[in-house]
């Protein structure tokens, strides 16, 4: 009898569980009360968008209720056709390339947003005020298929600052072991240290020879080769060539490849020499960002390139490092190149053609361009503590106190990022810049920007024709492979690179070099024309 009772109750319990589970699952799937469903790429650590104060506020103000559904970035990258996802009206954080946007656009699967500008007052105002942004967003057929992210802080063009271990130099001074060609006093050891490349080299040599980190762990100079920040471009630039990680830049209105410059070869040859003597760590060429950051925490770096030292170093070592001005060449000149990282990013959000009320959804997204919303989307909501509750002089003031959490952690969990419009004008009138960003900007303004090559500019977001896009795709793939391969082998190789092998690299890739240059030049000329006409 007892067994029967136990059996029956177990069965009932099991049934109840099943029913509850089914009800729960069904409940999760229904969203009748929501007007729109938007798919977004979100990591689990980031808070639920649906309960974020900034989105609640938006819903209240616009009367439009959006239900956010999620893919993690791993799921999303496996999703070959996100636009085909059933039951969604838009995709946020699409990450679509120019070609992909155009491919979806010309198939009519995503909406040409320029046809709905009437319901987007903010966005249309931006397009009128900033012809360069309008031009950057256009696809080959002249339509705009995505909403942009615009975050203009003037930071991205200069992603490298050179730091050096002040404490180690002090130790050298104390031990009276400064290299013969270096005259430094302890008073001089502060941000903006002024060094010739030869002096810098002698210091690194001393760091290594005396193994100042101890236990053979000393890393005289390190960086993350080819990374978007903290790469070796400015080291190469010190030889007088406007290098960036793509090796291509605008010089006096002409698209130019730095690899074609003989000074680039000289820089590579010099780097090989430094590498072979152990002054540049070879791990600079096979480590990724996280490995670089992990290795640096214990203060074993003599010198490194990165945007800010705080992420690279554990707290107790942060004060040991100071900023070095761009290295002087023998004639006393300093040079810095500019990167091609864009502050206007395409492909942040697309609306699917299957959306039934495109005007409605676009009018909702249009609100994202307002300064208050942009700021909260980018840093976290006022209610969650990203900004102080009260504005000062009409400006949102960032809250730097996040208790136990680091500023990065707080922002990562609370800010959805994505479609924002934060420009010079917004920083001046509506939002105060984060103190970290301000510090970074000040450092760049003081120690890096003034030394930019004359006449050198980044390549802006260009607008290519379909054929140009396809040609670029083919040529750039092999070209960047070949350059990266030659360069890395030349630098880490045991023997000094020969001029013949460099010339051979150029001649083998001549067709691709010329094709990429001429396509970019044509697009750049069109860009200049369009921007000046409007």
């Amino acid at each position, binding site marked *: 009898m007892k067994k029967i009772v136990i059996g029956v109750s177990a069965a009932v319990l099991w049934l109840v569980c099943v029913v509850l589970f089914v009800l729960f699952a069904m409940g999760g799937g229904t969203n009748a009360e929501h007007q729109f469903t938007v798919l977004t790429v979100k990591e689990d650590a980031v808070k639920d968008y649906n309960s974020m104060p900034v989105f609640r506020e938006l819903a209240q103000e616009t009367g439009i209720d959006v239900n956010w559904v999620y893919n993690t970035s791993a799921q999303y990258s496996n999703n*070959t*056709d996100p*636009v*085909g996802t059933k039951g969604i009206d838009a995709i946020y954080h699409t990450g679509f*390339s120019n*070609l*992909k946007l155009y*491919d*979806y656009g010309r*198939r009519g*699967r995503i909406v040409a947003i320029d046809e709905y500008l009437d319901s987007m007052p903010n966005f249309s105002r931006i397009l009128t005020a900033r012809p360069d942004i309008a031009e950057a967003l256009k696809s080959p057929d002249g339509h705009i298929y995505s909403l942009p992210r615009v975050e203009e802080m003037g930071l991205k063009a200069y992603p490298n600052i050179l730091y050096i271990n002040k404490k180690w130099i002090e130790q050298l001074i104390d031990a009276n072991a400064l290299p013969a060609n270096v005259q430094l006093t302890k008073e001089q050891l502060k941000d903006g240290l002024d060094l010739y490349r030869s002096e810098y080299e002698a210091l690194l040599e001393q760091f*290594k020879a005396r193994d100042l980190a101890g236990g*053979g762990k000393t890393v005289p100079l390190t960086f993350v*080769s*080819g990374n978007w920040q903290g790469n070796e471009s400015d080291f190469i630039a010190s030889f007088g060539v406007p290098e960036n990680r793509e090796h291509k830049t605008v010089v006096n209105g002409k698209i130019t490849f730095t690899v074609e410059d003989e000074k680039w070869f000289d820089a590579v040859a010099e780097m090989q020499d430094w*590498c*072979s*003597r*152990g002054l540049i*760590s*070879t*791990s600079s*060429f*096979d*480590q990724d960002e996280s490995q670089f950051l992990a*290795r640096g925490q214990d203060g074993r770096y003599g010198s490194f390139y990165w945007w800010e030292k705080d992420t690279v170093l554990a707290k107790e070592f942060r004060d040991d490092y100071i900023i070095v001005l761009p290295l002087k060449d023998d004639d006393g000149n300093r040079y810095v190149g500019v990167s091609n990282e864009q502050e206007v990013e395409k492909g942040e959000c697309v609306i699917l053609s299957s959306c039934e009320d495109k005007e409605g959804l676009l009018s909702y997204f249009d609100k994202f361009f307002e300064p208050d919303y942009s700021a909260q989307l980018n840093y976290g909501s006022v209610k969650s503590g990203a900004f102080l509750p009260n504005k000062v002089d009409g400006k949102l003031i960032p809250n730097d106190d996040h208790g136990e959490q680091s500023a990065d952690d707080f922002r990562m969990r609370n800010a959805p990022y994505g479609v924002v419009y934060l420009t010079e004008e917004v920083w001046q009138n509506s939002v105060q810049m984060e103190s970290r960003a301000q510090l970074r900007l000040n450092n760049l303004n003081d120690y890096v920007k003034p030394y930019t090559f004359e006449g050198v500019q980044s390549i802006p977001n260009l607008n290519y024709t379909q054929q140009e896009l*396809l040609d670029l*795709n*083919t*040529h750039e*793939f*092999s070209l960047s*492979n*070949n350059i*990266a*391969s030659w*360069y*890395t*082998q030349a630098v*880490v190789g*045991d023997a000094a690179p020969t001029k013949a092998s460099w010339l051979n690299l150029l001649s*083998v*890739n001549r*067709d*691709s070099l010329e094709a990429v240059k001429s396509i970019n030049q044509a697009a750049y000329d069109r860009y200049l024309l369009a921007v000046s006409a409007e």
Partner: protein
Amino acid sequence: MSNETIATASEDVFDESLDGVGEVGEDLVEQAYEALDGGAPAEEKKEKHPKWEAWKTNFRRHGWILVFIIPAFLYVLVFCYAPMYGILVAFQDYMPGDSIIGGSTTWVGFQNFRTFFSNPNFWDYFLNTFLLCIFGFLVGFPLPIIVALLLNSLRSKKVKKGLQILYYAPHFISLVVMVGMLKLIFGSDGLLDQLSKQMGGDAGGLKLFLTPEAFRPLFIFSGNWQDFGWSAIVYLAALSGVDPALHEAAKVDGASRFRRIFSVDLPAILPTIVMLMILSVGNLMSCGYEKVLLMQTAGNLETSEILSTYVYKFGLMNGQYGVGTAAGLFNSVINVVLLVIANFTSKKLTNNSMW
């Protein structure tokens, strides 16, 4: 003996080998059925297409056995043949979501192939693929056979079992972990690098992950270290079917342990070896891209960029699905040609073949 060998061999080999046996046994079966039918004299039957008649009788009696093939047949049809229509993408301007056959399909002829072949580095990628795979095959194919023969000759069963587990355990390490281990040992700042620096080596250090020449050895030897024990299992299974009487007879004749490996064991597993070799040759141009991609650095691109990584980067990451499929199709065609050549050669030389 050969039948016993087959019975214990892996499933694939079993099926394939049986075909061979079938051909030999066909006449016998035919004769047997003729004898069973008993009625008409053999000569009369021959005039009425004897093979066809025998087949009919055979089918009438045992046709129902064919039902057992249906699941396998369906499996192959649904999972191997049906998806093949996807290769049409190689001739289209395609992106996911487009219909592959339909009114909206944009056919572009051989445009994707032209794009693929016009890549200035095409021959480099082709050669890299070929060399990586052929070296991998040359090292990786004999190794498990040798290991299986040696393990099989061990006297102590316990030692044999222990070694076998030790050898195939690495097979279960995931690729990512495996490459992580490689980087920790062979990478810049890795174990070997540190050791060489401590022992007063070159100041630049050992940088095997940045040296194109080191890529293939690292890839092949790590791959074989991981898999030789696992691959040996098939051969060990085949060896366990060798009739002990043969060994005893050889012993009586005074054959040494070494002699017996060559004269008893090796001939016994030869059909298995040949079959696996034909299959490997058929896969010669496809060594998976995952591990190559994980081990790739800017420094070793010269040897580590192979066709399948190109398909992955250019086709999938760049969204050039048509070109990616064209490259994949090209690779498969080469594989098929190699397979046919290997099968033909083996048929001529050893009388073992897949068809």
